[in-house]
């Protein structure tokens, strides 16, 4: 070719080698392009889509909790946060500094100048809104991540400051107010044990919530009480928006039609806040006056529950001490939470359902029902009830045994005891000696006692030894022991003495205040054990009442009954758990000289037996020596009341350290339960006071005060024309 011999005389091959090199480069480019744009296109497109799309979860409004009269117990209120969107701040650093200075003057927050690397690093370790870092630090942190995302500068400012910030928005570009919904409990402390509180979604379930569209960094879930039990009902469904964002995180448009959030359902409780307040006041007043009387904190805690025994609706469930759930509403302050958690009185627990105590004499209702139904005793039989009884404690039939004294509670006042009394007076006077005899037998008088196997059956039929299945978290099951239990858990044979003290609700017997109340309610309701409930109805956002069921095993709410034990919670219907006079819930045992064997049959309780126990409870009020026949309890009460007291000896760490766990020296819990009106009971109230002393003296006045309040509220409602 000519080029070889062109003007320069340069050799052609050198040019050609350069062309070749260039050709190779172009070929490499083309193949690389083809690889990226054809072979790998899918992957890159996915990444590009991922870059520009963002899924935004829109928080739903949490449901509101009302009491039975529509009084709000939990709601959402606006909380104001001062935020700065870094991208909208003025361009001129001097302007930015001015904005910070003025904002600092308003809020008292440091401006954060000089802005050093070190100070930013320190702020990085803190949660947004934590006092300490200045405005500049927070903005610097947010700016580097997503300049279009508002950075929280100061949280929960007063409405006035929020308004000032809004008014000045023209002078302060980039500064704004963010409204954050915060749970508010108008009744706070009064209902905290029932309502509970919210907290952040725990890390171990964060993924499950994220899959449902929640934002674990923002959304909250119930941690206790109704807020926890009804969480799935209250929480609602988050909305979802898929938006196009630019590199700075600025939202540009919706890529898909947005799905609006569905607000949570509203829950109406069976609680009457007025009665709850009365119960709380009665409990605290009584505890305080006794503590003042003794001059030291003797009674450390207490519980009051009020229920309609015919329907199972819990009207009040108060406890002392409890906690202020409004203090946990925005964040859970560590020091406060730790203080509550370490308090030996467990204020965070709902003591009415989760604390187990010896029921003491209130347990005699079980022994009485069993003894009468099994023919251990007849109504006409006279039982000798001296102040002290010598009983033989045997661990086996061949054990010669030790003779031990068992005293009646009256012994200290009258060593002669109650003398010769019939069955009904045994209940009315709450004679321990009488019930020892009924429970464990007494040679020559009660040949065959009820014995522990049969006592356990009757106790269970009245609601003991099993969780009630109420719609609240943390319910304890209590304990009605039997010989098998003792052998496994204590490594010891059951002794006759165990039976004696179990007959009066002592020893290994444990029950929650709710269980003790249910035993009284079952008797009061002619042997029908109602399902206790705190839920009256659940309504959706439009006010429609939903039909929903509670599964007490899985603790879930479903739209149809799924498992054995599921019951309807909305709309409210009285749920019968069983009727001991009709449903054969009692296993039949044949007993011979203190030992029983199952016949494999099941039986019911005779209605007259239940009616007799009712009469015994009524006589506790009406008989001159009855345990509830006092001025400060129900002597001459205008409405016919029946009830049972209890003075339960206990021994726990505190008592042990005071060296009080010895015969005749035990500390005692106070119990009293009472229902009214006697013929058609519509209210049953139980009071429990830790280390209160004699039940009829310490707990009974509380029950009396709540009873007064109940009938007063009822008369007000009737006067106002509301349904009673």
């Amino acid at each position, binding site marked *: 070719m000519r*080029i070889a011999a*062109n*003007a*320069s*005389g*340069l*050799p052609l091959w*050198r*040019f050609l*080698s*350069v*062309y070749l090199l*260039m050709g190779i*480069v*172009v070929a*490499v*480019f*083309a193949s*690389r*392009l*083809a690889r*990226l*744009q*054809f072979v*790998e*296109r899918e*992957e*890159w*497109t996915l*990444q*590009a*889509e991922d*870059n*520009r799309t963002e899924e935004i979860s829109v928080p739903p409004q949490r449901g509101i909790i009302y009491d039975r009269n529509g009084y709000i117990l939990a709601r959402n209120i606006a909380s104001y946060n001062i935020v700065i969107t870094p991208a909208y701040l003025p361009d001129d650093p001097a302007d930015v500094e001015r904005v910070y200075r003025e904002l600092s003057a308003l809020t008292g927050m440091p401006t954060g100048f000089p802005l050093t690397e070190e100070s930013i690093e320190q702020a990085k370790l803190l949660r947004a809104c934590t006092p300490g870092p200045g405005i500049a630090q927070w903005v610097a942190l947010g700016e580097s991540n997503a300049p279009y995302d508002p950075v929280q500068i100061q949280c929960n400012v007063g409405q006035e400051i929020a308004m000032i910030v809004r008014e000045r928005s023209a002078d302060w570009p980039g500064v704004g107010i963010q409204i954050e919904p915060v749970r508010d409990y108008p009744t706070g402390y009064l209902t905290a044990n029932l309502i509970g509180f919210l907290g952040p979604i725990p890390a171990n379930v964060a993924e499950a919530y994220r899959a449902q569209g929640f934002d674990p960094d923002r959304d909250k879930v119930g941690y206790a009480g109704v807020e926890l039990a009804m969480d799935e009902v209250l929480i609602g469904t988050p909305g979802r928006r898929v938006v*196009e*964002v*630019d*590199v*700075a995180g600025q939202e*540009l448009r919706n890529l898909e039609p947005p799905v609006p959030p569905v607000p949570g359902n509203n829950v109406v409780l069976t609680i009457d806040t007025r009665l709850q307040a009365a119960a709380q006041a009665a409990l605290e007043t009584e505890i305080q006056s006794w503590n003042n009387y003794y001059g030291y904190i003797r009674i450390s805690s207490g519980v009051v529950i009020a229920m309609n025994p015919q329907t199972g609706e819990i009207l009040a469930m108060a406890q002392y001490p409890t906690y202020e759930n409004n203090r946990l509403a925005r964040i859970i302050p560590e020091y406060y939470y730790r203080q509550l958690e370490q308090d030996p009185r467990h204020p965070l627990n709902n003591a009415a359902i989760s604390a187990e105590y010896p029921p003491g004499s209130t347990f005699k209702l079980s022994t009485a029902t069993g003894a009468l139904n099994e023919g251990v005793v007849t109504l006409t039989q006279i039982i000798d009830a001296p102040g002290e009884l010598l009983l033989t404690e045997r661990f086996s039939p061949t054990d010669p045994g030790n003779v031990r004294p068992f005293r009646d509670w009256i012994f200290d006042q009258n060593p002669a005891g109650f003398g010769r009394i019939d069955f009904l007076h045994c209940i009315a006077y709450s004679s321990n000696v009488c019930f020892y005899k009924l429970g464990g037998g007494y040679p020559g008088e009660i040949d065959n006692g009820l014995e522990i196997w049969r006592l356990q059956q009757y106790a269970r039929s009245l609601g003991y030894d099993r969780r009630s299945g109420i719609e609240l978290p943390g319910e304890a099951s209590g304990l009605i022991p039997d010989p098998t239990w003792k052998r496994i858990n204590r490594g010891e044979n059951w002794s006759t003495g165990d039976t004696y003290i179990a007959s009066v609700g002592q020893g290994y017997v444990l029950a929650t205040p709710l269980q003790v109340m249910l035993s009284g309610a079952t008797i009061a309701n002619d042997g029908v054990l109602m399902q206790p409930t705190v839920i009256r109805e659940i309504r959706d956002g439009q006010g429609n009442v939903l039909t929903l069921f509670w599964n007490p095993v899985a603790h879930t709410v479903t739209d149809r009954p799924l498992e054995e034990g599921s019951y309807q919670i909305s709309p409210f219907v009285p749920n019968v758990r069983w009727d001991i006079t009709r449903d054969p819930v009692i296993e039949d045992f044949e007993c011979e000289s203190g030992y029983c064997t199952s016949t494999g049959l099941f039986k019911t309780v005779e209605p007259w037996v239940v009616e007799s126990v009712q009469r015994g409870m009524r006589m506790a009020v009406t008989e001159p020596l009855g345990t509830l026949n006092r001025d400060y309890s129900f002597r001459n009460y205008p409405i016919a009341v029946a009830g049972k007291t209890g003075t339960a000896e206990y021994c726990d760490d505190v008592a042990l350290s005071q060296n009080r766990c010895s015969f005749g020296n035990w500390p005692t819990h106070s119990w009293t339960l009472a229902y009214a009106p006697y013929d058609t009971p519509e209210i049953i109230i139980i009071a429990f006071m830790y280390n209160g002393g004699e039940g009829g003296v310490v707990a009974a006045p509380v029950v009396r005060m709540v009873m007064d309040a109940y009938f007063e509220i009822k008369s007000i409602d009737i006067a106002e024309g509301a349904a009673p």
Partner: protein
Amino acid sequence: MFRTENWRHFDFWLLGVVVLTMIFGVAMIRSAIAGNETLAELPSRQITWASLGFLVILVVAAIDYRLWGGAVRWMYLAVVLFLLLLYFVGGQRFGAARWIETGLVSIQPTELAKIVVIVSLAYYFARTIDRPRSWRWLLGSLLIAAVVAGFIYIQPNLSNVIVIMVIWAAMAWIAGLEIRQMIVIAILGFVLFVLAFFFFMEPYQQARIYNFLFPDPNASYGATYNVQQALIAIGSGGLAGKGYGHGTQTQLRFMKVRHTDFIFSVIAEEFGFVGALLVIVLLGFIVYRCLRAARLARDPFGVFLAYGVAVLIFFQGAVNIAVNLNLIPVTGLPLPFISYGGSGLLSLMIGVGLVESVVMRHKPLDF
């Protein structure tokens, strides 16, 4: 000077494709701005530069390239002084002193220096064409390139140092560089590079090379972010692209320096494989026309001049595209005629003008 008969040989194809490429470039800059207000006036500025460049082509083409031979020493001296001046008064941008702020515009002398190096080397190789290919001959040419490269290095601007050294190597190769010289140079160059890497390079330069050789798979928002975003843009472009102004990577600004270093990715995203290949074809055609001029040139000076400009355009384009395709480490070289940048564009236009000047005068007489 304006002998009309020469314009018959004026390469209108070259001019036409250059203009077409610049128009395409302006359009892509407009898209690449993606609503960024501070960059909004760049397209119109680029149009100004391109128009100025158009005139420059005509003026430079009109001047007989052989006249530059006599002025080579002065031009070279002026550029060296210019670079020195830059060293003392230059404004810093992105950490490097590469600009001289005048009242009106900021000038980047480095771009001009590349053209001057081409002219100087062309003149040197043309004058020494009959000499033996001794080490002295080679070192003479190396000195011309190295002095300018040295001043550019202290800016610091490593990529343009490489451009100048590549131009020198490519021209020396054509001028008859011997194989053994080439081997020695290659070995020396490698040693020098290694030494430079460990002792002279700035940390950011080391980091770029290191990041390219050993990319950290977790560092999607760190050092490899820009390249990664460019690859996403190119790959998601597919065959025909997402359409002008509809590239999500571009318009939502996931890619950085879109209007300069990564404009090739913008094209590949919005016009896909077709658009990217079109750019390569357009630039390839320009390079081809320059090489054609070199082939036609009537004297060695013209051959070296046109060839040098071809190498400059090809190398800059290839490096830029290779960065976009993540074939080599990130450098700051623009895509010729397309990336935003006045000085770079003007220098290339001067180069094209020189090529036109060579091709216009490839025949002594044409009756």
